[in-house]
């Protein structure tokens, strides 16, 4: 039963970390898009509705992108790490 307790605690903690990191990652991407628009001389004077659309499109691309999927590593790396530890400590 010990391993169930460990797995439960670990995945609850990892889920919290996953959500915090995904919020952070999204926020960074949004800021980048905002800055890309704001510093582009061609976009000077264009109305703010288009800015909103530009950012929305960029965020949709992010949601489907590789970087978003890489966040699953937050679950994968510790799991692989623990399994490797178990293997090397006990059978190597």
């Amino acid at each position, binding site marked *: 039963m*010990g*391993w169930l*307790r*460990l797995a439960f605690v670990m995945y609850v903690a990892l889920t919290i970390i996953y959500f*915090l*990191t995904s919020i*952070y990652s999204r*926020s*960074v991407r949004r*800021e980048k898009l905002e800055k890309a628009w704001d510093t582009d001389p061609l976009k000077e004077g264009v109305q703010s509705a288009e800015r909103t659309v530009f950012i929305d499109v960029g965020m949709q691309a992010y949601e489907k992108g590789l970087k978003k999927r890489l966040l699953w590593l937050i679950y994968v790396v510790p799991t692989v790490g*623990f399994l490797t*530890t*178990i293997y*090397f*400590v*006990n*059978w*190597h």
Partner: protein
Amino acid sequence: MWTKIKWGLRILAVLVVGLFLHYTLPQRDIVRIVDTGNRITQIGENWIFYSIEDTGTGAETNTTRDIRFIDAVYPDGSSVMVYRNEDTGWFWPPYFKWDSSTLQAEAANLRRDATQWVAITHYGWRIPLVSAFPNAVSISPVEGPDVTLIPWVNIVLLTLLAFMAFMARRMWLQFRERMVDPAMVDAGETFDAMGARAEAARKEARGFFGRSRAWVNTWRAKK
């Protein structure tokens, strides 16, 4: 005064984290094994330096446990170390070691050759005052006492920890920049607006009575 307290707390935090990592992370000693065996060991107030109850090392009770030990001698030939050899179970520290019987057999085998040097991976501290022993995790034969071992596991783990601390800081700063600061600006604007309203209200209130009093005051003797 406040600065001193802040720095004191910071140093304390670094010290606690450092000691915790030093206790938990694996270290390797190059030694010769001179004896292996087990003995009934009293575990009382020093329980924190032993495996927790449900690890299944052997027949366990609250106060005594049969624990395997490995005695070893360092290359200088006189300083020695005693390792305990206990399963670690499922929780902390996360070594997931269940092969203490196998490890003991390996130790006994390597002990037969008196010239055989081994690297013992272990965690924990030897504190004679509280009968604490480092826990041996694995044993591997090495060529001699001068062999250089690169602590890859610690390099990887410490790099990961540093990365996590760095990311936590970045996340906090991002959160402050994007969420807290705009909210503070909003609050500041609200506060300013409130101030302006209060000012207007004060001017308004001054209206009739204020003007009357000012008129009355003009009749007073000048001092």
